[in-house]
């Protein structure tokens, strides 16, 4: 079975956002809402993240929580709860040390991620397996997907759009993380080395003021986005509650992938013969024709 990017692209062209059936060679016509009839293992049925990404996410989310807890306590030092939390961290000296260690670990995780992504992409390009549709790079299609998804939420369309491995939500979030990490690390570095930065900034007062503001404001923005957006998507939305195990297993449930990443599922059908057999079985059980 071919796994070239051309085949996947062809598949997506055939399967427009408003088409109910998607034909997959060796399987048959797959209806868009087949995810309602499949069985899923909560720990995940299909591969989604490499173990590198799992480790990076784990490092990032642990350090993020520590950084948020210690940083917010310092930022809101005058609020009633701040001394209590500070005491939990062992006082301002220990909290400062913990914050800096967590920040260093987050930087390491970020560098590890960049190496993985750049190295992985180069490897795929050299082995001719690179497919831009399976990356986090924003595409025009993502804007169309968002419009159609909103139309679906408003009840104006019957089915959700057919999306790739990373849908518009995840791409928005990924861009936000890139921006946030850059801002927080650069501003944090300036705050960590005030004596050195005093000799580097053309206008030390203005430069360090911006660093102070950027570090705090961006951190608050990141925390609100993570709490209200990321946690809603991965924990609270029906079907995902209480959590998705992808962050530990690196695998996604079949139901979730077909619903939100249909074109990635089509890619997986081409990759895994046992998945094709499973889908054919489901189609037959529900009265659909198969190849």
């Amino acid at each position, binding site marked *: 079975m071919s796994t070239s990017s051309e085949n996947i692209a062809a598949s997506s062209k055939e399967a427009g956002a*408003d088409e109910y059936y998607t034909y997959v060679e060796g399987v048959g016509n797959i209806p868009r809402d087949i995810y309602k009839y499949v069985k899923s293992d909560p720990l995940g049925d299909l591969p989604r993240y490499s173990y590198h990404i799992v480790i990076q996410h784990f490092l990032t989310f642990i350090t993020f929580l520590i950084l948020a807890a210690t940083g917010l306590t*310092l*930022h809101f*030092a*005058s609020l009633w709860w*701040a*001394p209590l939390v*500070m005491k939990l961290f062992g*006082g*301002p*000296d220990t909290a400062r040390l913990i914050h800096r260690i967590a920040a260093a670990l987050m930087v390491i995780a970020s560098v590890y991620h960049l190496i993985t992504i750049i190295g992985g992409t180069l490897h795929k390009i050299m082995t001719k397996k690179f497919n831009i549709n399976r990356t986090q790079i924003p595409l025009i299609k993502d804007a169309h997907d*968002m419009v159609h*998804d*909103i139309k*679906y*939420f*408003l*009840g*104006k*369309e*019957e089915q959700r759009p057919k999306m790739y491995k990373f849908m518009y*939500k995840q791409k*928005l979030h990924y861009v*936000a993380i890139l921006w946030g990490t850059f801002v927080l690390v650069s501003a944090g570095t300036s*705050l960590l080395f*005030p*004596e050195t930065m*005093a*000799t580097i900034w053309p206008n*030390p*007062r*203005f430069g*360090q*003021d*911006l660093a102070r*503001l*950027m570090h705090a*404001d*961006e951190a*608050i*923005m990141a925390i*609100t*986005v993570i709490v*209200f*957006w990321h946690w*809603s*998507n991965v924990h609270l*939305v*029906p*079907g995902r509650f209480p959590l998705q195990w992808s962050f530990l297993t690196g695998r996604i449930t079949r139901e979730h992938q077909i619903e939100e990443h249909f074109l990635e599922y089509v890619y997986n059908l081409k990759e895994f013969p046992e998945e094709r057999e499973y889908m054919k079985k489901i189609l037959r059980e529900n009265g659909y024709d198969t190849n």
Partner: protein
Amino acid sequence: MNLTRAKKICFIFSLSFLILISDSVQKTSFAADIGNCLLCHKYPGLSRVDEEGRMRLFFINESIYNNGVHAKVKCEGCHTDITEIPHKAAKKVDCLVECHIIEPTTETKFSHKDVATFIKTSVHGKVDKIGNDKKFSEDYPSCKDCHDEPLYRPLSFFKKVRPGISEASLGRCRVCHKKDDFIYQFYNHVTTRLHKSRNPLNIAEMCGRCHDDSSLVTRHGLSTKAVFSYGETFHGKAATFLDERVPDCLDCHVNKGESVHQMLSHKDPLSSIHETNKGKVCATIDCHPSASPKLANYGVHSEFNLTQSPAQYFFTFFFIVLTGGTLLPLMGIIFLDLVRRFFPHATIGRRK
């Protein structure tokens, strides 16, 4: 037992009891209370409403007072107008009065008159350099605007694990000094003076009583609410968590080795924070010994408001808009997603 003998026994018991009582009273009572003022002022409820309608409390907490720097000063030392008991309404205490304490190096009566001299030429003096009253001179502080009854804050040198009197140190004192009362007093006095009598947060709060008062700040044309803006810095935040090593107002605004009462305006060339001197403030051996003088250019009183720092103000505004502009549409999508999941057949308009 005849009556005379019984009387004698009763007398001896009574005398012994009185001696015991008087001994215990002497141990706990206010050391300098020669006039027996605590006879009345020991009662917590001793108070009255004065002519201006304010509740005045006249209770003296003896145990607290005995740990204060004035414990050895007798009441009449400050309340000089009280000469009889019961007394009439007492006048306000003049902190510059000479008290009965003898300053040991000059063997003269002690007073705070030198402080008044310092204050007079400082930024907090009520008169200008040619002796005229400054504008709004009534706003400038007097002793009790900054000072309450200071308590001893002794250091412990031996193990450095806790503040307070080191018994190990006292053991050394006792070799020569026989009176424990003197030892405690002297140890407390010296060790309290070896560091600040208040932590940075207390000092900032004290200064903030005037320097964060909007009406005073406006009336005197000050550029910032000094303590509020200090609280926004990392130094100020650490002070909030009772960190004693961070610089407070006095560390930067007073020349090293001078009294805090000699604080000068930032426009005075002799001031520690004058443009030509402030580079040295941060780069002291206790703070940032290897720092460039440029470190002192950082904003330590930035308020980020439109008047003081417009660029920083709009920068903050940008982040607020960015946060709201990012989060609200995303939450809108989450909301619509939830609505569709909970009400799968709901629709707005005609479905395709």
